[in-house]
């Protein structure tokens, strides 16, 4: 079906440009006295945590930039909008930003919501840079869409790669069937497992993210005898529920996850036996305890401003703002089309908190992933860096 979308695109593109030309000018007009960045994130609803992570980091980055004189000498201002973790609301937020003349948008956080506006961004000629939508397809179809994180395909593959290099051949998976993130990672893990010759012996899932009990799932892992379980969930499930329950169910092997595990140490049960967290591995965009000065500077500044340790989403959102800065400076203007061209340049190198990288032809960074693990002395849980994988072999 490849020619078909091309055809539609061809017919649509000129129309879009024709109608958009005045809108773009409108956007450019007030740009003389500032650059406006639109942010779309889930500020209320089930994923409000991520909304907060994004808005705080953007706040930090923008205030840093403005303090340093802005971009191209212009101050940056931000319009925050709420997508309520709902695709239709995301589109509303997007349209509202565009109608206010915003041409550069940062968002949204989740793949589901972001995919609701990628097509529209292209049609409207508005640059969309998502900090954290990892679904593979986000950047593949649309020219105006970029992201600051790597795709699920990469993250799932790293886990499979790690399992293989650690010597496991039989593995299991526990994932959430109702969550795009979890399901997407499972799919990419499964695909990579096939290439690495891993044998997925057991797959269990949960029907929603509200599930509290994972004992049966891990009991099934125990009975199938696997010693490596890929469990792509979020920190607030891993910390209080999964790890302790898995150990209580008698599972002693490795539990591996992805960037959703970021922040887990703050979500463990005080007073419980935390040795359960040994042997838990995960992949992440960055490691907050990384000694890299850029990372330390960011972590310190964020802590100073918001009194908490930034998570990976914050780091990505922070990097995304700086990506915009670099692109605008390269383009010499904040005109969306020019910024798009600057971002599309695969040779540009960005160095941020989440590593030094450049974007590939689709608009997804090629960057390494940190493999981290938790370590526990029984009363506290800490994170330690195991490895940084730049490239999959």
């Amino acid at each position, binding site marked *: *079906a490849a020619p*078909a*979308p091309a*055809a*539609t*695109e061809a*017919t*649509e593109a000129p*129309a*879009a440009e024709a*109608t958009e030309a*005045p809108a773009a000018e*409108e956007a450019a007009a007030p740009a003389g006295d500032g650059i406006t960045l639109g942010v779309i994130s*889930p*500020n*209320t*609803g*089930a994923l409000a945590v991520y909304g907060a992570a994004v808005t705080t980091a953007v706040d930090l980055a923008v205030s840093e930039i403005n303090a340093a004189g802005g971009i191209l000498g212009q101050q940056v201002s931000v319009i925050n*909008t*709420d997508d*309520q*973790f*709902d*695709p*239709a*609301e995301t*589109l*509303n*937020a997007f*349209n*509202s930003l*565009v*109608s*206010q003349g915003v041409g550069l948008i940062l968002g949204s956080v989740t*793949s*589901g919501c*972001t*995919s*609701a*506006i*990628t*097509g*529209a961004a292209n*049609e*409207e000629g508005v640059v969309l840079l998502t900090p954290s939508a990892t*679904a*593979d*397809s*986000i950047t*593949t*179809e*649309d020219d105006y869409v970029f992201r600051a994180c790597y795709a699920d395909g990469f993250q799932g593959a790293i886990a499979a790669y790690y399992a293989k290099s650690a010597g496991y051949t039989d593995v299991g998976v526990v994932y959430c*069937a*109702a*969550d*795009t993130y979890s*399901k*997407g990672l499972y*799919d990419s893990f499964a695909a990579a497992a096939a290439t690495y010759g891993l044998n997925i012996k057991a797959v269990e899932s949960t*029907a929603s993210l509200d599930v509290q009990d994972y004992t049966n799932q891990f009991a099934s892992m125990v009975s199938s005898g696997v010693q490596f379980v890929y469990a792509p969930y979020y920190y607030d499930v891993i910390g209080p529920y999964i790890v302790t329950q898995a150990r209580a169910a008698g599972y002693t092997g490795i539990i591996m996850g992805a960037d959703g595990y970021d922040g887990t140490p703050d979500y463990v049960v005080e007073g419980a036996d935390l040795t359960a967290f040994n042997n838990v591995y995960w992949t992440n965009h960055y490691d907050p305890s990384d000694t890299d000065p850029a990372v330390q500077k960011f972590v310190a500044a964020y802590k100073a401003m918001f009194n908490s340790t930034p998570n990976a989403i914050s780091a990505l959102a922070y990097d995304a703002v700086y990506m915009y800065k670099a692109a605008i400076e390269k383009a010499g203007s904040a005109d969306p089309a020019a910024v798009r061209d600057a971002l599309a340049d695969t040779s540009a190198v960005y160095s941020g908190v989440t590593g030094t990288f450049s974007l590939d032809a689709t608009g997804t960074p090629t960057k390494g992933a940190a493999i981290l693990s938790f370590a526990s002395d029984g009363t506290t849980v800490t994170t330690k860096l195991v490895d940084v994988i730049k490239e999959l072999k």
Partner: protein
Amino acid sequence: MIKSRTTQGYLLNTLVIAILLIGFSFIKESFGKAGDFKLIIAPSIWQCCYLIILAASLNLTLGFLGQLSLGHCGFMAIGAYSAALISLAAERGGVFTEKSGAAFILVLVGCILAAGVLAALVGLLVGIPALRLKGDYLAIITLGFGMIIVNIINNLPFAGQEGLAIGSASASLYKNGLGFGTALKVTYVWVAIAVTLICVAMMFMFVRSKYGRAIRAIRDDEIASSASGINTSFYKVFTFAYSAFFAGVAGALYACANATLSTASFAFSNGGILNSTFVVVMVVLGGMGSLTGSIVAAIIMFFVNYQIKNGLWVKLLPMWMQNIFAFPMLVYAVVLVIVIMFRPKGIFGTYELSLRNFFSDMKKQRQNRLAQKQESKEALNHE
């Protein structure tokens, strides 16, 4: 006499709709290119349209048949997913290549109808327990059905979270399926309006016929209605299916208006206003047994929701109010409680707007208000 008065009514309704449409196309012409129509008004019309159909259709079961259904969005999900899948299949099968022309319109109409019919079939299934259960027990069953539908869709390999067949729902729906971009939403805004008008008319015709009379009788007293010769089982199941049909159609419109589908949007409750709980809220707010009320409530809910989140005037408010408005659900909750306190029977009660009787109704309304005032005085006395 009845006939001539009704003919009068039809003429009047048609006239007013025609005037509205002409006025609308005038607005469209004058603002159409300037962004706001395309970016704000047209998408809003689409959203209002499916919310209107959704709320009005639930009113058939809730307000007219008197059965609380807490899983109405499940039917909408069925409609949305089937319309999306059929359109994708049609595109892959080469029935249409671009979203214009007769072939596409045909597919579009086909998708909308199919969405309705499939939802109606499931509605039939849900209607069956309704024959044995009442009140809260039935509510739980419908809620259960809603959950099951969402759970099943989540687990379908071709319709799950990651979407339709290849890749994500997003891209494929937008590029190859029904999903209309901003420009197409303007082009096809007539589809949304026409479908809504037809649906609403169909519902009005339904409630103002023996069907409507029968189901209202069932609502008021089921035993008495069967003792009056009404086949209660038939009318109940039929109404469930009929109502589900429109929810399915609303789903198809949803699939047109959005580039992506996610089952979270059709759940029992979520962060937004499109969920089974809020549809019930719209119906009760508008008035159970008043289609006009459902329509108005749907529009109000949409408008309030949109304005609180995206309205520019919010920025002019004092900071503390802006801080509250950052939690839209909080605001609706308060608004809801207030509205219900002042209009416990909903905004419209069981009143239906009729253009023909508009002025005489206004007079009646005034009298009712007076009576009500007295009543509330009375209620205070009872305290």
